[in-house]
């Protein structure tokens, strides 16, 4: 094929403008290369800029109070100039851990089921279902929590658990008759993180080598034994990464949690206590934060803590997943 012929083909396909000279095409290519390469770096820079901005904005409080004191102190009296983030961090961790305790095992089971046991047709039905759970806005989850989960905990689960397990440990005592608290937030968060864990588990299971599956089946293993072996030898880090991703998603969820968690700035000691996670703290106080000295700085420090925790968890988990799925 001559050069002219290939050029004609490209022009017909609409890739090359009629009558464009080679010089012009090369120039456009180079300009686009430079422009788009800058964009790539901008994206990487964005992470850096976000971290630095939040760090700069929280510097005043870090200087005044000290980072360790800020993380350790339980005294939260913004008007008196005392900022301790410990109750909020404890609240965030409590809510997230409860959510994970509820969500992880069913989500892994579902992910495994989607990867190993479904035909393409069933999957075409199940996948949109999981996707829809991702798509529902967090305020709708929150409202569902208020309308359904909170009354359920207040009237049924709370008294039952209190009667059965309360005498054994203060952790199960129904300290808070309203129903708004750690457990309600945990249930709502569990549903919100569920689809993420399912999707990632499925992805890493699917990227396990097909020969492994075939060999095991050929040797007479049942499907479940095959699955177990794949999880144990190929997918385990990926499944753990899925859980870590779910954890960090739950850690940063704002509106839904804020609506059902009760928002009391104390470290929760029982499953039914009201708590006050970090994102709720930021969202609830945005309006007054400019009027009290150091308040905005304290809230930005809270955002910085969120960012750093999520960043570390996400980076590690995503690295593991990229390794496993062999993304270029």
């Amino acid at each position, binding site marked *: 094929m001559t*050069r002219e012929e*290939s050029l004609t*083909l*490209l022009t017909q396909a*609409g*890739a*090359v403008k009629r009558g464009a000279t080679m010089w012009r*095409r090369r120039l*456009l*290519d180079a300009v*686009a*290369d430079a*422009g*788009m390469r800058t*964009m*790539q770096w901008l*994206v*990487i820079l*964005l*992470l850096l800029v*976000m971290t630095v*901005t*939040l760090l700069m904005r929280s510097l005043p409080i870090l200087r005044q109070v000290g980072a360790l004191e800020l993380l350790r102190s339980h005294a939260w009296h913004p008007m008196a100039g005392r900022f301790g983030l410990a109750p909020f961090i404890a609240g965030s961790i409590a809510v997230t851990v409860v959510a994970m305790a509820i969500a992880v095992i069913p989500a892994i*089971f*579902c992910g495994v*089921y989607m990867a190993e046991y479904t035909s393409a047709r069933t999957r075409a039905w*199940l996948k949109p*279902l999981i*996707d*829809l759970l991702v*798509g*529902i*806005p*967090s*305020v*709708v*989850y929150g*409202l569902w929590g208020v309308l359904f989960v909170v009354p359920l905990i207040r009237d049924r689960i709370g008294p039952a658990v209190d009667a059965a397990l309360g005498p054994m440990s203060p952790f199960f005592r129904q300290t808070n008759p309203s129903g708004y608290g750690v457990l309600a937030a945990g249930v709502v968060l569990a*549903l919100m993180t569920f689809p993420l864990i399912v999707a990632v588990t499925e992805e890493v299971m699917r990227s396990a080598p097909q020969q492994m599956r075939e*060999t095991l089946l050929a040797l*007479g293993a*049942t499907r*479940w*034994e095959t699955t177990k*072996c794949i999880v*144990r*030898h190929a997918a385990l880090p990926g499944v753990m990464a899925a859980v870590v991703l779910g954890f960090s998603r739950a850690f*940063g*969820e*704002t509106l839904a949690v804020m609506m059902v968690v009760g928002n009391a700035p104390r470290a929760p000691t029982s499953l039914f206590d009201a708590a006050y996670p970090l*994102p709720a703290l930021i969202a609830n106080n945005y309006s007054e934060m400019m009027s009290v000295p150091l308040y905005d700085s304290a*809230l*930005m420090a809270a*955002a910085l803590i969120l960012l750093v925790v*999520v960043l570390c*968890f*996400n980076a590690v988990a*995503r690295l593991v997943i*990229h390794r496993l799925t062999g*993304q270029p």
Partner: protein
Amino acid sequence: MSKHLSDSILQASVRPAQSLHLKRRRFEESVFLALMRLCMLGAAAALGLILAVIFWRGVGALSVEMLTQPPRGNFYLGGGGGIANAIAGSILLASGATAAAFCLAAPLALYLHAYARRSRLAAWVRLTLDVLWGIPSIVYGAFGFSLMVFLGLRASLLAGVLTLSLVVLPILARTLDEVLRMAPPQLLETGFALGATRLEVAGLLLRQALPGLFTALLLAFGRGIGDAASVLFTAGYTDNLPGGLFSPVASLPLAVFFQLSAPFPSVQERAYASALVLTVMILVISLAAHLSMRRLGKHVVR
């Protein structure tokens, strides 16, 4: 296959045969299969429950006035009016943010496929996008707020769109990336073989991925419309219809939130109705995205 792998396969296959009868192994399988099906069913039931509760509680307060009127003076005390301000505001915010993010995401994704194929930079950019995807929107909100203060902007549509576009960017870029990955590799190879420049090949790719691109845009739009934490600081809230780029706008999720925190039952009823409106919008968008993805699947060579 590595030594380690073949050993473990041998172990896994030999051990059960020695210690367990086939019946017991089958039984174990059926138990776990039932468990997995149960979990799947539980998820479906939870989804159904959410939708049922939202529909059942929301339908009552829904009216034409709700959808077409902005709130009147005593709206939060149970007076007349509706949430047209929030619906319009949300659509403006989400479409603006999706458009802004698309301008950055499309070149990003195309570059990853036409220029930086299998390069180190591409791996890093994908990792960064994935990490950005995971960052909570409240952090974007706080960051956007800091930028606003720095630039001297007030809470406004513009600030809301900018912040929301940061939230949407990784979602859009990664979805586009996946869509472009589905394009047949022959397309690239043929293009390069005919002497096309990388930019021209990117154009070919873009045309091939057009239906998938539509899906990605819809998904990003749906995510943008449902996101509240990032616009809480930056877009503000107002009872008026959106006035301009530099005035605050209302958004649906925040409308739900604020109405719910009012002490009057009749206003709370409206929160349920607003949530229903939001949910229906999301359902329609998801359905459209799903259908367009199916159509895409038909025409792509795999």
